[in-house]
């Protein structure tokens, strides 16, 4: 078992012939993901790597192949439309990897996907991986291994760091989800925590947050009220100065809100394990799996 994606995921890749799209499609196929279709307007009828049919629209791709999940690698000005196109075509899960999507675009896209009951992950995210079954996005497959830990994070490479350390210590993962570093994203911590709580194979959760916003505080509140499974948390950006955007558009401390201290306090109040350093996850998770 796992959350959001598994071996039955049938994936359509939007932007399959682009530089990033083609590179990562090959990687996803090598990992064993069922890539059933690609979309590049004007290249309908061609094949990717001689096997994957390419369509002009997501609608065509879904009708012909029964794709139920989409991953988006198109450039930022077109990403909002690509998300809406996928949601309108009837896929259940849309994963947007694209970085640099204007936040006002997301104010339009968010209600559009919500009203259609579609789950959006991202934008500006590394995607997700269910080790041994499927990967959708760009998380390196070889750093993951199947096991009992659910991983959810706002960051890309920091996720890799933690997952890699868990894997090296022999602790595998059910699913790793990167929800993205933008101020408005489709899926938040609570959505993932809820899914992990329901997933029978997940025994503990590792959660990597960042400065900025109040998602982590709300997640802590949720954990306190609704979760039986243990959660270990980390906050990146404890040393960040206020008012400066630390790379991720969402990672900015405004006024007195969104600080690391405030978030760690919420974690402590929820009885969560707190990793001071990325490497602390190993021991903290291990202790909670016993």
């Amino acid at each position, binding site marked *: 078992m796992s959350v959001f994606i598994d071996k039955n995921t049938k994936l359509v890749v939007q932007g399959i012939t682009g530089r*990033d799209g083609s590179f990562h499609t090959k990687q996803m196929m090598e990992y064993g993901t069922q890539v059933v279709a690609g979309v590049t307007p004007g290249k309908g009828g061609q094949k990717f790597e001689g096997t994957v049919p390419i369509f002009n629209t997501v609608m065509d791709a879904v009708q012909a192949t029964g794709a139920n999940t989409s991953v988006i690698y198109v450039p*930022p*000005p077109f990403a909002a439309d690509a998300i809406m196109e996928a949601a309108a075509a009837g896929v259940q899960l849309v994963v947007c990897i694209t*970085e*640099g*999507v*204007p*936040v*006002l675009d*997301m*104010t*339009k896209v*968010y*209600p559009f996907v919500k009203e259609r009951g579609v789950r959006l992950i991202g934008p500006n995210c*590394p995607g997700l991986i269910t080790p041994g079954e499927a990967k959708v996005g*760009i*998380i*390196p497959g070889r*750093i993951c291994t199947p096991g009992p830990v659910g991983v959810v*994070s*706002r*960051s*890309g*490479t*920091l*996720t*890799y*760091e933690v997952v*890699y350390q868990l894997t090296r210590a022999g602790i595998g993962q059910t699913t790793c989800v990167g929800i993205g*570093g933008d*101020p*408005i994203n489709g899926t938040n911590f609570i959505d993932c925590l809820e899914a992990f709580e329901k997933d029978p194979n997940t025994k503990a959760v590792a959660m*990597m947050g*960042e*400065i900025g*916003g*109040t*998602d982590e505080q709300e997640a802590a509140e949720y954990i306190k009220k609704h979760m039986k499974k243990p959660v270990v948390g*980390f906050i*990146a*950006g*404890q*040393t*960040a*100065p206020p008012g*400066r*955007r*630390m*790379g*991720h*558009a*969402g*990672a900015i401390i405004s*006024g*007195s809100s969104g600080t690391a201290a405030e978030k760690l306090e919420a974690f402590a109040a929820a009885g969560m394990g707190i990793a*001071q*350093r*990325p*490497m602390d996850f190993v021991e903290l998770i291990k202790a909670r799996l016993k």
Partner: protein
Amino acid sequence: MNIHEYQAKEILRGYGVPIPPGEVATTPAEAESIAKKYGTAVMVKAQVHAGGRGKAGGVKFCKTPADAKEKATAILGMKIKDLTVEKVLVTVAADIGSEAYVGIIVDRATKKPVFMVSAAGGIDIEQVAAETPEKILYVPVDVRYGLPAYDAMRMGFFLFSDVKLARAAAKIMQQLYAAFMASGCSLAEINPLVVTPTGEVLAVDGKMVIDDNELDRLPAVAALRDESSEEPSEVDARNANLTFIKLDGDVGCVVNGAGLAMATMDLVKYYGGEPANFLDIGGSSNPEKVVNALRIITADKNVKAILFNIFGGITRTDDVANGIVTATKANPLKVPIVIRLTGTNEEIAMKILTENGFSASSDMDEAVQKAVALAKGGK
């Protein structure tokens, strides 16, 4: 991206917001002649990307043109939060009856632009939110429908009981909203929104923050960037496609990915060091990016040790290794370097580094501790 008050006011004027006339001066003589032209009392206001300009002495009321010249002499060249004032806005001083606050931000919780309005204007809105939250009205806007007239009127009446004033304010909200959306803002504010003794409603100060992700499709807005008011190393980094923020410490950090870059800074601090910067070389890196990153970091005289922390996913670690070799051949390092890399093409990267006399580790914790010790003069 921040823009100056005078630039924000120009945009807002374009949408019809009533704003007292003003012009920018870069010399005291210019300030004097602008004041003379208006023939009335003026405000001379420092144009820098910093809050608290008034408290710092960067905003002055001037009765006469001679007064404007004198105040501009004092303000031009002064430093506000480390930023040198190079321009002042000379603007007609409005008669102030009362002051209100009107702002829009993109709110993460509702995932919508949200208006915040308050009759307690002229002061820091965050202070109002903390101390007297009931004095602020929040109105989220569904961007698919825009700001409905009834919501604009509701805000107008929250500020003013007089229907004429409420109507005037509601109109300004619509204009502010239009400017906010068209300019790709993440924040737009009028503070204060002033009612004059004769019953005019005017925007006396304006502020806009633009979403950096909008700049590619809004060239006219992008052109408002004032590089002279930014940290030079940050301008250099942006032109090299790096995300860089200068800090005060002595461990120079080069990392891929924003989350890992923050976590690396935190770990430096955890082991008793101080990071000199935040630097994210981004995803698909090439050796050129690493060369630029090293150039920018070594230009900071405070840096006593350099720390690379690379987790190769899309980033190829051999690209990073090649960048380090190229950069240090051209400009030999004067400070020690600690390299941590793991992930894509790690074996090739290690070979490149070893052949060129560098050592590298694959452990983040170990590398950070070593860099901190080196910055402190240890081995």
